[in-house]
């Protein structure tokens, strides 16, 4: 089957029951997407499927044929970070970093649906992504700041998206 990950096409021969998480990590070596609970309880494996956030552990690869998957590796480049990645650094919205890829992708999906969320909307939108280090207050600040930055420069989020699939 054809799977499009971060703009690149892959020919994948995964069994029907294989979760997208295993395909990404084990077949494509995209290990930025983390396995934590494996049953949709923590949000650490959040990726984008056609721009919408999904749990890669509960999504079957077979259901993603010809659809666009975006993982943390495809969001920005080291020298051209996505505004949310930059905001997470700026606000120190991470400690161990294990939940961070999932947090950032959940925030990307949130801001796509709601480009200027209130603090309460960020809290509701992101509360499916657990962080045991407790970076939560700074995650909220980072998401609000990134939304503000995008509002100030309306093209940046979209430009970034088209550049990196």
């Amino acid at each position, binding site marked *: 089957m054809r799977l499009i990950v971060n703009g690149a096409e892959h020919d994948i021969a995964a069994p029907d029951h294989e979760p997208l998480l295993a395909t990404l990590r084990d077949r494509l070596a995209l290990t930025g997407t983390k396995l934590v609970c494996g049953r949709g309880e923590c949000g650490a494996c959040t990726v984008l499927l056609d721009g919408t956030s999904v749990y890669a552990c509960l999504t079957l690869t077979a259901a993603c044929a010809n659809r666009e998957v975006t993982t943390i590796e495809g969001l920005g480049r080291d020298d051209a970070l996505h505004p949310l990645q930059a905001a997470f650094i700026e606000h120190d919205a991470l400690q161990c970093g294990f939940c961070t890829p999932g947090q950032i992708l959940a925030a990307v999906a949130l801001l796509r649906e709601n480009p200027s969320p209130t603090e309460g909307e960020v809290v*509701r939108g992101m509360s499916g992504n657990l962080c045991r280090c407790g970076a*939560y207050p700074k995650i909220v600040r980072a998401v609000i700041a990134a939304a503000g930055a995008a509002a100030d420069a309306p093209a940046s989020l979209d430009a970034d998206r088209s550049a990196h699939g």
Partner: protein
Amino acid sequence: MAKRFVTTKVEIEGREETKTVELPSRNPAPWQDDAELHVVGQRVPRADALEKVTGQARYTADVQLPGMLHAALRRAPVARGRVTSLDLAPALAMPGVRGAIVMDDAPDVKLDGVRLFDRTIHYANQPLAAVCADSLEIATRAAQAIVLTVEAEAAVADAEQALAPDAPRVRSSGNLHRASPRIIARGDVDAGFRDAEVTIEREYRTPVALHTALEPHGAVADWSAGRVTVWESTQGIFNTRADLADAFGLPLTSVRVIKNYMGGGFGAKNGASFAAYTAVALSRKLGRPVRCIFDREGEQTDAGNRPATIQHVRIGAKRDGTLTAISVDATIALGIGGWLGGPGRIYHELYRCANVRSAETFVFTNTGAMASFRAPGHVEGAFGLECAMDALARELGMDPLELRRRNYVDRDQDKNRPYSAKHLDECYRAGAERFGWDATRRRRRDETSRIRRGVGMASLTWGGGGGPPAYATVRINPDGTIEVLTGAQDLGTGARTVMAQIAAEALGAKVEDVRTVLGDTERLPFASNSWGSITTASVGPAVRVAAEEARDSLFEAAAGMLGANADDLESRDSEIHVKQSDRCLRFDEVCEKLGDVMIIGQGSRGPNPERTALSAFGAQFAEVEVDVETGQVRVLRIVAAHDSGRIINPTLAESQLEGGIIQGVGYALYEARVLDRASALPLNPTMHDYKVPTLADVPEIDAFFVGIADVVANHTGAKGLAEPPIIGVAPAIANAVADAIGADVTEIPLTPWRVLASVQRER
């Protein structure tokens, strides 16, 4: 000539140990509190943030090696009993399965008293066999294909069952740890209670809490030519190396342990894990790299916990609040094993009182072993002591903060020695002011409304003075960039950033020019486990010494180039200046002229000051809302004032405070391992059913440091800060709930039904 090797005391996780230390090559004057520092104390961005936000940080489970196999465990379905048969054949017959191990193939090692793959079952989910296959999916299916029969026996789920007259014997030696009861006393407690004008007596209960690090325990092992390289999610690479070398009969040179990034430890990852022994044994047997990572249920049941406690507390006082006696009788349910991390010690430390006695009974149960969990013992003990202090304050009709201030102490009373520094009084003052303690306490109470507000507070203390041994090397490259090499670990705490800041400060370098390399036993000099909040205070001084040695060499090299004496040089922002002149060279210009000369500085951590207690302190304040119809508690805000000496990086330090406070909110309100008492089987080994705080549960947090350098503790002036912020949260919240509903709360987590029961008792 002065002695080169001396001994010194170092406190780790509440235990004081005597360590041998080699005196460092130099002993710099402390950076005084008012010293003009340029990099230390700055809000430098986290050094490894880029790797983490781009998914490039490679954690243990992300290591992929050519030919690597995957291991899966078969675990015990009952909490006590024995294996009567275990047939591997159906598993080994499956395509893609490469091998398996059981007890006889594993090294003869005991973890928490249980032999690896023991056929006697001591707790539910105890590993019985491991299967290795081409993929994790095949390995997992094969592990379930093993035909297992067990004979179940009656099991012990908790301390009360363990201490019952006809209890099954958890261990052949019985159900009490041989150190039980551990009694520590000063003064005459009976006389103290006779002198008391008011005595309160309460029983407090705390739950089993699970670390729930997002990254589970796990390892990748690559055995090759009689040597083994192990990637492990660990807080202690050198401890892990020693454990594995010992188990597999290897010299230390044949074991290399690497830990680059890890997804949280919180105390549970302090040596070679079960996963590491399994991966190494399978790699040795099969001649291929092996990855063994615990699944979530394994992590929640077989990877450590904060043990449950029952604390029977009595406090005696004069009517003016002066404490005359404190006593606690505690029962601690260790699980199948663990160490003596009990709640008793904080009762001896926090307040002035001549007569204090703690008696701790450590009990074995048929559950996974306890492990250190962020301020082990003190978190449990602070709940009992600080709730009891509030109960006393209510009895006396006194402001709880005033009661604590009246019993302020400036010495370590058990050991009769001074603190290197103690600014708890400043934490009380600054915390109360930022919280608005007096104003909120004076606010009129509405005793009729459904939603009641309350405020509470708690004080805290914790070691974290650190100590030797710890070593660091600082190298200056031909392009003027700098590497700090030390065998410490960054668990997400910020050690990489903090060590770079200390080196940059001592060298007069730009922090962007400094890179810290951690977590590799083969390439780096020794540093101890990252535990007990000791890394900054232990390793930081070694880094400073190494950097100053390198700076002096660099100045000597530059002196000739600048036509000046080395003594007349100073450096800042990676530039060397001749004092009172405009002559100047950049580090890279000096180094380029030196060619391949590599400037290297070596540093080590010196001894701690003699007969001095090294501790961190804090005061935490909480405001809550309680719905007296439903028992629902909402924490509105937490104000936390902390004294951890000098703060090297306020941003990262505040992140740790917030994180510790949020874990404390979970401990206070939500978190508890639940077992079926009849079978001792776990009922909530998932992240959905074990309730860690989510983003929606976080109150407003104002956490800060009073930030006064402790120049007696060590020459950087910094002390530990990772564990303190969790300590006072649960009692501050419980005291606020008690204030709101006008009734005692004595057990956490403060679930709605438990709060409701307190409300109804009061009516």
